[in-house]
Every structure is written in C-alpha cells, then in structure tokens.
C-alpha cells in the first residue's frame, strides 16, 4: 500500500436519536480502492457524508478526518468548499435526481470547472467535451448541449462521474454508484471508475451493499455492522477466510449466480435478526414441484400475442410487444429484463390495471382481456400481487388488521369473526404473530413489512401470485428470508408465481422456467437448466456475463 491519502481516526457520529458510527478508523491509500460494505442503516453513508462535511446540522461528529494529514473537521466552511469537488468528489446513487433537469449537461459540467479553476467559458466548454469523452459518452460535441432527460440512466451516471473527476480529485467517494442501474450498465460504470482510478491515481472509497461488486473491484474491504467496523481485510482474504461472524453471515446469505443454487435442492441460509420466529415453521420434507398436476391441467394463465401501448400526445408507444407465454399450475415463471423492458407494465396488464392494446389474456381458459371491472372483480381473488417497495406499498395510515380485513371486505366477507379468523391464519402463513394486528406498518422492519405485503396477496387464496421485484428493496440477509418464505408458501398453498426481477441470481434460484425480455419483446424462454447453461440469444448471454463478481466468489463458495 502506498501512503495514506485519507485517514479516519476514531470517527464518531451522533444523531439526536442514535449513535450512527462508533470509533471508526480507516485509511484509503493513493490509487487504492477501499470498499465499505454493510446493510442499510449500518452507518456507511453517514461516514461518506461526514468526510465531505455534508451531514445534516443536527449530527455531531467526533474524532479526526485526515486528508493528507490535515484534519477536515478544523477547516472553515469556505476552505471546505474548496476541498469539495477539488480534492474530494462524490458520486451519489440516484443519477435521475442528482442532475439539475433544467440545465444542459455542458452547463453543469462547465459550472464545476469554473468554480474551481481559472478558465474562460470557451476553454471550460472544451474541457467539458473532453471529460464527456473520458467517461465514454458517444459524440460528446453533440451531446454536450443535451439535457439530463435526453440521457439514459447509465449515461447520466457517466455525466455525474465526469463532474466528479472534472478537477482531478485525489479521493473519489462513490456511494452505491450502480445500485439504481441495470446489470449490463453496472459493469461498464465500474470498469470506468476503475480505469479512472488508475489513470488519475485517485483513492476510491466504494460504498456498497453488493458483495459481488466488492469481490471484483476492491483492493481492501471494510465491513460495517450497526455503526462499527467489524472486519477489515484485503479483498481476496476476506472472501476466502472471513474472520468475523457477521461477515460470514453476510457472505453466506448473499446469493451468487455461480453457486447454481435452486430451490428444489437447497434452502438459503437465513441469517437475519428475526430468523428465530421463522425457524419454528420450517416445513418437513423436500420441496418438489407437483409435477402430476402440472402436466394434467390447462395453463393457469396464458398470454397470446399481447401488445400494451401508452399514449403520449398523438404518439403511441408500445411497452409490450407480441408477447406470448403460459404459466402452469404449481410453476414459477421467472421474468428477467432490464429497467424499461416492459416487465412492470406486463404485470399491471395481467392485473388489468392497464388495458391491453391487442391479444388475449386467458385465466384458467377464460378470456379476461375485455372483461369489465365489475365482472373481473370476483376473478381478482385468483391473481394477486406482491410489490417491490415494502414501504410504499402499505398505506401508512392503516393497521395490519385494516389492510388485510379491507381486502376481505372488498370480496364480500361481511362477518367480523370470520374475517378475524382468516387474518390470523394468513399471518400465520407468513410467520407473523397475531400481536401484529393492531400495529402500523412503520412499526415493522423491512422484511416483516414485505411479509405483510405477502399476507395481503395471500389472504384471498389466489392461484397465481405476481411478485414484482419482491426482494430488490431488501438487504441481502432479508432477501434470503423472504425467498425461503415464498418457496415454502408455494408448497403449502399450491401457488404459482410470476416472479419478476432484474437480479439473475434471485431468478436463477427461484424459477422453474425463465423468460427473458428486452424492449417489450420476449427474446428467449426455457426451463431453468437450459437457459442458464445454454443461453441461445446474445442478449441473454450478455446479461449473464454482466453479473458481477463471478470469478472470485467461486473461491469463497468452494
């Protein structure tokens, strides 16, 4: 390791209600990538904000933050402004909201340059074009006058990176830089960051929850848990010989594409804190698809040449094109695709929240495509949905009993005791106790909330459950818990799933068959073995290749 560029010495961060970071000591060397890893709420983002002194004013920061031996905490606000952007830059998670939508990207890049360097406007523009070229935006002379909405998510993140490296910072802090991006884009952004780090010999502090990324891109890794650093090691060593129990749990519970796990063969190790209340319900017997049933009956859901269109002004835009597939009873169909490929539109179309433009949707052989809402309402009980965001999908003003009871009332269960009985029974299915009934969603953890969301989908005893990215908003340890629960419930209640996700590792684990979508079309579908081992379409292959951390994780898993 070269000499220390950034050194944190006994950093403590207090918020009015919590002690967010405790006695954290770290060093980042020049030209080195240090990954700071941990689950949400572990204090990793607070640390990043403390380094740039951008924390909310109600936070108290103790200890020392040394940049080239000088304590940033002693700097005046004016001197700190000169440090930000020039010596230290930061990239944020959301490329959609970190750029100003009413200014062209050239103007925004130019502003950064003019702020820190003595340049003429003409020279600043020239530098901005060079920077766009450095971050590999095609045709930079033309794109420099584009506005953020003209760019894709990945391109916006590239512009953010261009702004961050504009003044050759010595330390770049990247806070979840690729979490909001698609896998194929993710890989190219990290490659770019890595290349820039080498060329500009920057220190890179990479903050992430994704262990796959870390194994591939970091030199050293620091693992944080509940505000404390529990382990720090060279990346290869950490993955091969994790020392601390928490690191081992984190490694064990994160799904890796290369592990080739499938729910038929193995349960995921559940390492979350509320694992105990799930233990009691582990079903006996190995899960096995009810193959006899699968073979004998008509498909539960069948789509024939479905198109879905959005109208913007005069133009029609097809979000789903010419899509046909079927889901048989007891089967899990995994739907994979990147953002904007039409997978969420598809799920809303099946639920008839959006009308189909053409084609037919058949539920148990009955055509529901043109059914009116009142005729369809009784059939809604057969298809239910689990949403992505366990925070946004539960009404914050309703108790658990209101949420679940309301569903039953909508479907004509008028008797109060009968409702109560079914609510308690369903809560039992998702391993929540009857004590939860009178509590509000905010009183539960993320995983518990998602289980309430699953209970809402199950209370009508549906045949098909559409799971739209059900675990992508959850921490890794909770992901395993929810996936295990979905597998168990499928067995106990004879469910079928349409499982939508951008995360190939998750889809690989849970699906019997897989359908790959690109730009609203199905490019490939097949059973879970053939699609992963012998992908036919080039797009499927590029998706599989883009999954991060494939080489080094294998060592740890072995």
């Amino acid at each position: 390791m070269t000499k220390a560029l950034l050194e944190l010495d006994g950093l403590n961060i207090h918020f009015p209600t919590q002690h967010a970071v405790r006695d954290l000591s770290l060093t980042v060397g020049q030209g080195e990538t240090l990954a700071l890893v941990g689950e949400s709420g572990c204090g990793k983002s607070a640390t990043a904000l403390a380094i740039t002194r951008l924390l909310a004013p109600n936070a108290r920061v103790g200890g020392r933050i040394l940049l080239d031996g000088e304590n940033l905490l002693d700097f005046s606000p004016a001197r700190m402004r000169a440090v930000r952007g020039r010596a230290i830059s930061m990239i944020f998670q959301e490329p959609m909201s970190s750029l100003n939508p009413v200014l062209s990207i050239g103007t925004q890049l130019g502003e950064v340059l003019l702020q820190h360097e003595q340049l003429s406007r003409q020279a600043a523009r020239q530098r901005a074009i060079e920077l766009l070229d450095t971050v590999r935006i095609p045709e930079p002379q033309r794109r420099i006058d584009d506005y953020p909405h003209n760019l894709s998510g990945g391109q916006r993140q590239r512009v953010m990176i261009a702004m961050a490296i504009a003044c050759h910072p010595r330390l770049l802090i990247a806070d979840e830089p690729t979490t909001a991006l698609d896998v194929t884009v993710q890989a190219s952004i990290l490659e770019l960051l890595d290349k820039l780090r080498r060329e500009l010999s920057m220190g890179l502090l990479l903050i992430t929850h994704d262990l796959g990324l870390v194994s591939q891109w970091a030199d050293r890794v620091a693992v944080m848990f509940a505000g404390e650093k529990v382990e720090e090691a060279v990346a290869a060593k950490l993955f091969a010989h994790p020392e601390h129990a928490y690191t081992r749990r984190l490694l064990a519970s994160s799904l890796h594409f290369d592990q080739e796990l499938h729910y038929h063969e193995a349960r995921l190790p559940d390492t979350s804190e509320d694992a105990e209340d799930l233990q009691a319900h582990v079903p006996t017997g190995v899960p096995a698809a009810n193959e006899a049933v699968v073979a004998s009956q008509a498909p539960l859901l069948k789509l024939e040449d479905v198109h879905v269109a959005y109208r913007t002004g005069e133009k029609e835009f097809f979000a789903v094109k010419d899509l046909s597939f079927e889901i048989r009873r007891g089967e899990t169909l995994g739907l994979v695709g990147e953002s904007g490929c039409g997978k969420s539109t598809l799920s809303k179309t099946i639920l008839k929240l959006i009308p189909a433009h053409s084609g037919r949707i058949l539920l148990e052989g009955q055509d529901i495509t043109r059914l009116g809402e009142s005729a369809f309402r009784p059939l809604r009980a057969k298809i239910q949905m689990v949403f992505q965001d366990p925070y946004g999908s539960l009404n914050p003003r309703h108790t658990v009993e209101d949420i679940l009871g309301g569903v039953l009332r909508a479907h004509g269960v008028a008797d109060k005791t009968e409702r109560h009985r079914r609510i308690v029974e369903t809560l039992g299915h998702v391993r929540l106790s009857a004590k939860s009934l009178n509590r509000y969603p905010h009183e539960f953890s993320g995983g518990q909330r998602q289980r309430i969301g699953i209970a809402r989908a199950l209370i009508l005893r549906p045949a098909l459950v559409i799971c739209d990215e059900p675990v992508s908003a959850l921490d890794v340890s909770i992901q395993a818990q929810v996936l295990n629960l979905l597998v168990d419930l499928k067995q106990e209640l004879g469910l079928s799933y349409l499982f939508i996700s951008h995360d190939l590792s998750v889809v690989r684990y849970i699906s019997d068959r897989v359908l790959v979508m690109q730009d609203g079309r199905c490019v490939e579908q097949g059973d879970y073995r053939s699609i992963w081992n012998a992908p036919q379409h080039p797009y499927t292959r590029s998706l599989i290749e883009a999954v991060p951390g494939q080489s080094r994780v294998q060592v740890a898993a072995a």
Partner: protein
Amino acid sequence: MTLENFGKTGPGLYLRSPSGVIGAGLLVLLILVALSANWLAPGDPLDMVAQPLLWPGQDMQFPLGTDSLGRNVLAQLIHGARISLLVGFAAVLVSLGVGIVVGTLGGYFGGWIDRSLLQVTELFQTIPTFLLVVVVVAIGHPSASIIAGAIGIASWPSIARLVRAEFRSLREADFVMAARSVGHSDAWIIFREILPNALPSVIVTTSVMVASAILIESALSFLGLGDPNVVSWGSMIGAGREMLRTAWFLTALPGAMLVLTVLSLNLIGDTLNQVLNPRLRGL
C-alpha cells in the same frame, strides 16, 4: 408524502413547539371569549351606554372607553370576536366542502372530468377574490351566512388545486396500486386510502385560510358592506377611521384583535406544517 407517526406522536410533537402552544392558546382564548360574549358583556353592544369618546381608563365601568356614539368599546370587541370567528370558520367549511369534492373528482378520475373541473377552477381563480365577495354580498343580504358563503365560494379553488395535486401523486402510489389490484372500489380507494394521506396538507392550508377569511370579512365591514346589525372588528375600524388623530384607540384596539387572531392562526398553521410534514420533521 406520508405521515407515519401521526396517530401516536402528532399531538406530542405539536405540544413540544412553543409557537404552536402560544397560537393554540390564543385561539382557544378568543373562542372562549366569543362563546361567552353574552355573559361577559350582556346586552346589545350597539346600545349607547355612556358619554361619547371616553378614553380607556377614564371610567372604570368602560375600561376600554367608548366610541363617538357612546358605545362600550370592550363590549364591541367581545361581540366582534363572534362574527369574525364565525365567518372565518364557516367560510372555510364551505370552501373545504367544494374544494375537496372538486379536487378529489378531478385528481382521482382524471380525463375529461379533470379537464372540465380544472376549467371551472381557473375561471374562479381569474376573478379577484375580494371583488367576487363584494359582488355576491351586494346582490344578496349582507348577513353573516351570506358573507361566509361568499368568501367560501371565492376561495375554494386553492383547496381544490391542492387536493387535486395530492390525489394525482398518491393515485400512482404503490399502496393505491395494491388496493386496485385487490379489487377495492373507487369509493374505498378515495376515502380509505388516498384522502387520509392527503388531509395533512389540507389541514395546514385551512388554518391560514381561516385567517384570510377573517381579514376579508373585516375589509367588507370596513367598507360598510357587512351586516349593519352586528358589531364586527372591521366595522369598528371603519367607524373609528375618521377620528384616527383624536381617538386613535378606536381603530387600534380592533386592529390589535385582528392581528392577534391572524397571528394565532398562522402560528398554528406553521406548527401543523412542521408536525404533519415528515420532510420537515428532521428525523
């Protein structure tokens, strides 16, 4: 957009704010005074009871003095609180009623319903509020209920626009999607899912609207367009205006009451905004 802890910690948070407590205390005091006006100052406040233009403190039977017609200023202030608060709250009830219905229908259903309701709203917004009130009151009798109704009719568009905006964003929220996918009716989604989440911002606006309705009523009375049979702070200011140099207390005292009332409502509005708006709550 949501308020997670309202049921549990809302009142507690409100009481922790000094300005909120002062505002609420002032308003409660004013309401108590208005309610007990007949007991605190029995008889008609418009009766001539003493020699005109007694200064405050001159005769302890009339601690705040008398006006140019020998009427008790304190009794007029006490009774004036009634009409001000009554008109203020009644007017806002009317505009809440119209505004919430219009905003809900337009925001939830969208399409042609929204477009036509929006045009009606804009029509009302182009007419200056005060002018509309003057016209309505001039056509009808200047009674308290007509005045309240006129102010309500003139000020509902801001509520309607607010409710519409809340409905348009909440309509796309995941939990509303979930409610629709479960098969809930439109009425359920409007009343059980969206409206409770839209109300906080409406409540905040309401308290400021009460204040502006009270000011409009005073302005009407000042111009002599109010109910001539009832004392109002505005009419007191209007009558005292001519003696501003010789007996300034005749305008200053009712003016001070208006300031206190409007201040208390604004303090309440600010505090409610901090308590109900999770983005400002700083947690």
